[in-house]
């Protein structure tokens, strides 16, 4: 019986007008966990695990229960803008004194621009760089990380010799598309052509990059394992089971926490090696998360104020301190913790040369298709040509709808 008053309250709250509701913020994973510390007290935040976030944001859009503001992976922006779930921010940006594209890494900002409009403000940045065991590289005669692909292959060859049959030169999980796609972007491969109408994976530059990537497995420099089967990678890195790993900013913190103290100075980071003859550093994939304004919000002006608040350089520094996520604003990088950290410095260098993946809503599916087909090539079930042809066929099939929509739109105009 005691429950009735509470139930009545819930029902009343349900009847309250939307305008009386506090602003709703959806944060993902670890960021969602700490964001309440950065938000004003009257903002309601909800934490959503990364693995379920994409589904949940789409379902919320369909069910008309999107929040006012949310954190989204910046590869989702083409999709969310195409279905009209989020609001273009150009108008707000023009008036804003707080946020300006100049203080952001160009490659990262670019991921938020689709069809000439800005749809999200970068919150933190993510890209992939090389983590390596400095001592082991020195042992095989490399004082610094490889800067070209051929240097990279040579260092892996020597590391592999040193490691013997049980070890590997590099950890390169087969279900991570970022390293091979970064290599393709370094070569200048377009991935898609005709405004994202068709796949372009048999294109010579893509094929060359993919061959080099596959070579790493073929020569036994990396073991053929998906992420789920890697085991305790920190222990393996400390033991020297592998000496290199292409990974992201979260591992700066993880490596410090999880590696034994004597390892502290034995590992380092470096930007990606570049194809022979290309300027160093080679490009990497522009990732990270952005803050977006949902179109269904009835309080967009207030919501935009909140985005501005979270984008202030001091807030960006605090956010970095809380999460270890690298700030999207360049001015936040002058904080001593980042400026004086050589391991984080490699990310700063890399972020000057990051490129977005094709900005089509289908990208996540294309990436999944990519590693599915790639896995069968790596496992020796298909040749490179067969795998890439199959990939191109599947991606073209996937893009059929996009072609139809684009052609229809052109006809109308």
């Amino acid at each position, binding site marked *: 019986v005691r429950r009735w008053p509470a139930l009545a309250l819930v029902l009343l709250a349900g009847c309250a007008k939307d305008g009386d509701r506090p602003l709703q913020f959806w944060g993902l994973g670890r960021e969602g966990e700490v964001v309440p510390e950065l938000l004003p007290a009257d903002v309601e935040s909800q934490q959503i695990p990364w693995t379920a976030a994409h589904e949940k944001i*789409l379902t919320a859009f369909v069910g008309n229960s999107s929040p006012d503001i949310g954190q989204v992976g910046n590869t989702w922006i083409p999709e969310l803008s195409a*279905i009209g779930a989020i609001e273009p921010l150009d108008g707000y940006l023009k008036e804003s004194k707080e946020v300006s594209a100049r203080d952001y890494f160009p490659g990262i900002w670019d991921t938020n621009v689709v069809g000439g409009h800005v749809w999200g403000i970068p919150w933190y940045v993510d890209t992939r760089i090389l983590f390596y065991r400095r001592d082991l590289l020195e042992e095989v005669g490399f004082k610094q990380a490889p800067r070209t692909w051929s240097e990279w292959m040579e260092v892996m060859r020597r590391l592999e010799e040193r490691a013997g049959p049980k070890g590997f030169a590099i950890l390169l999980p087969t279900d991570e598309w970022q390293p091979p796609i970064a290599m393709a972007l370094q070569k200048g491969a377009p991935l898609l052509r005709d405004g994202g109408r068709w796949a372009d994976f048999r294109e010579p530059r893509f094929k060359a990059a993919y061959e080099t990537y596959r070579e790493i497995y073929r020569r036994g420099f990396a073991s053929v394992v998906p992420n789920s089967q890697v*085991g305790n990678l920190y222990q393996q890195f400390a033991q020297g089971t592998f000496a290199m790993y292409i990974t992201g900013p979260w591992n700066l913190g993880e490596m410090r926490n999880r590696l034994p103290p004597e390892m502290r100075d034995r590992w380092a980071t470096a930007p990606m090696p570049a194809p022979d003859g290309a300027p160093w550093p080679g490009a990497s994939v522009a990732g990270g998360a952005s803050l977006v304004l949902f179109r269904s919000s009835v309080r967009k002006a207030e919501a935009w104020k909140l985005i501005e608040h979270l984008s202030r350089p001091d807030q960006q520094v605090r956010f970095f301190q809380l999460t270890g996520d690298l700030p999207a604003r360049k001015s936040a990088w002058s904080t001593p913790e980042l400026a004086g950290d050589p391991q984080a410095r490699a990310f700063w260098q890399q972020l000057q040369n990051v490129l977005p993946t094709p900005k089509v809503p289908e990208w996540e*599916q294309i990436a999944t298709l990519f590693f*599915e087909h790639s*896995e069968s090539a790596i496992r020796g079930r298909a040749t490179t040509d067969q795998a890439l042809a199959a990939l191109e066929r599947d991606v073209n099939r996937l893009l059929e*709808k996009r072609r139809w*929509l684009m052609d229809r739109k052109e006809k109308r105009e």
Partner: protein
Amino acid sequence: VTREGRAAFIFLAPALGAMLIFFFLPVAAALLMSLTDFDIYALADPANARFVGLGNFARLLRDPVFWKALTNTTLFVVVCGPLTLLVALGAALLVNSKLTRFKGLFRTAYFAPVVTTLVAVATVWRYLYHPSFGLLNRFLGALGFAPIDWLGDPRWALASIILLSIWKNFGYDVIVLVAGLNSIPESLYEAARLDGAGFRAQLRHVTLPMLLPSLFFCGVITTIGYFQIFAEPYVMTNGGGPLNATLTMVLLMYKQGFRWWSMGYASAVAFVLCAVILVVTALFGRLQRRGEA
């Protein structure tokens, strides 16, 4: 319509209404959807969906991933179903044996996995299956075998999930079969013993025939359950990996529907699965009628 008929209809109306709104309408909507290419673009504007007739079904038949999912699901049903039933029968006979003490304890122990949250179970089993630190591989190592990458190797992943599923699900059948065993009159066994029947003869000529209805029930429920298997591969192998070795029909439907939002295609998968289950259940019904005759 008689007065009673009308009264009966009025009494049934709420339930029928609920079924109409929450079951028949969605099914009809899904059927319509399966004839369109409803996808993420159609979320923005329903005019972006095209009527494609049986195109989705034709595409399914050409899709190697669909055949992989169908094969995996069939393997699941054909291997996992009978094994589950067999293990359950063995366990039920043991629990029911006069020599067994603490029957309640065993019944609870066998039933515990059925009611445990799968996510918790999966966490423990992932440890068991871990390639370098898992109990199973330690055991293999002690016997001098090379370690097996249970969940990561496409050749072993499905078998690993099948093993887990049997362990997780056989307890339910045990409870049903124990109840069935208890309802067999003791006099039949006495008569059999007087006729000189040993354990095997008793099992074959008394226990199994009397248990047939329970076995049929378990068979149908278990089979339908395995056709719809989803959660085990969803949590154990990140949704059907490696190389789709553990991808099942429902998992394929879920991925197409909610990850990629290809609702038209996902609906087509759903109707194919539905048709398969209908056919198999009808076969079971026939078998049972023949068994009774």
